[in-house]
């Protein structure tokens, strides 16, 4: 049997819609300046000094906070020093929530879930082999740390991040005719990659979180020690595999609950048949 460890969290075990509402709430909180999309200029007020913990883009016109991954690369590139601010923010959120940030706060995670819910292929049990998950390790060490450390570029933002292109690149370039003249091969590369990602999001649940996202990986380092945990009671488990089928990250919660891959969304708790017979409901 799987259950959330803290009593107040057991109340949100029927998460289906409730989790989506929490995601929507954090999306609105993080993006209050929607009118900035018309001018194509990012908000630059006081809150931009702080980072929200999820993957977004600090160039997004409506975003009230910074992106920790962008900030991390920016400080490494321009100051050639350890990015204490981004690391401090991520370790603070990591200590309390771990990768639950991906399930509840990250706007890009929510975006993927919306796309998957609209998918005509969502009943197909599709997933890449597990070894592809190593791509996010490569992204972290090569694109996020190494390329900025040599002073070349903010590697992940420049060449990979589809979030930046969707929420910042396309609206800003659409609103600023002057920037359109600067479109080059990188823009078309990112566009092609983003189209591929978006199509693939419809085929596999949380594909970006599984294989690509270095931010989720950083938060995953805190997963086993964070305050928010999913508790597994091995003695009551009936090995029905319902949790495995429901897991958006494609892991087996019985073996890997709270592992680096687990986003603690609670979908396993919701579908656990033993849980439903217990007093937790």
């Amino acid at each position: 049997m799987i259950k959330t460890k803290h009593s107040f969290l057991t109340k949100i075990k029927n998460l289906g819609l409730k989790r989506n509402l929490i995601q929507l709430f954090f999306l609105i909180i993080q993006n209050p300046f929607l009118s900035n999309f018309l001018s194509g200029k990012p908000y630059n007020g006081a809150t931009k000094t702080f980072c929200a913990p999820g993957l977004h883009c600090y160039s997004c016109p409506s975003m009230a906070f910074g992106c920790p991954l962008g900030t991390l690369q920016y400080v490494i590139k321009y100051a050639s020093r350890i990015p204490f601010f981004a690391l401090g923010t991520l370790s603070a959120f990591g200590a309390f929530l771990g990768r639950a940030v991906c399930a509840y706060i990250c706007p890009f995670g929510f975006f993927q879930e919306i796309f998957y819910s609209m998918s005509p292929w969502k009943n197909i049990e599709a997933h890449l082999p597990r070894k592809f998950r190593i791509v996010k390790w490569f992204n972290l060490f090569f694109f996020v740390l190494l390329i900025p450390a040599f002073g070349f570029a903010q590697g992940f933002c420049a060449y990979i991040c589809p979030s930046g292109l969707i929420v910042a690149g396309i609206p800003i370039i659409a609103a600023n005719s002057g920037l359109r003249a600067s479109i080059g091969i990188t823009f078309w590369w990112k566009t092609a990659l983003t189209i591929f990602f978006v199509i693939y999001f419809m085929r596999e649940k949380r594909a970006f979180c599984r294989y690509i996202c270095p931010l989720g990986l950083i938060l995953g380092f805190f997963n086993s020690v964070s305050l928010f945990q999913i508790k597994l009671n091995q003695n009551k488990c009936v090995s029905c595999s319902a949790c495995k089928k429901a897991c958006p990250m494609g892991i087996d919660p019985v073996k890997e609950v709270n592992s680096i891959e687990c986003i603690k969304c609670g979908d396993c708790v919701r579908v656990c048949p033993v849980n439903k017979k217990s007093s937790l409901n």
Partner: protein
Amino acid sequence: MKKAIVISILSAISAIFIAMTFTVEIDEYGTKETDLVKAAGKNICMSCIGLYDENIVEKIIEKFSSKKSEKAQ
């Protein structure tokens, strides 16, 4: 108990890290890390919007070949 200690330590470390960014100067002009974070957030980032068009492979080769020639000299 063990977990509580780990979480407390992590929280303390993150508080120290964040406090450092508001207080420690990173260059002779008195720039703090938060100033960099602010600067990053206030401007349109060319990397993020897909307009960073330098040939990175060329730059890497250039950097390493210049280091080699420096060593040779």
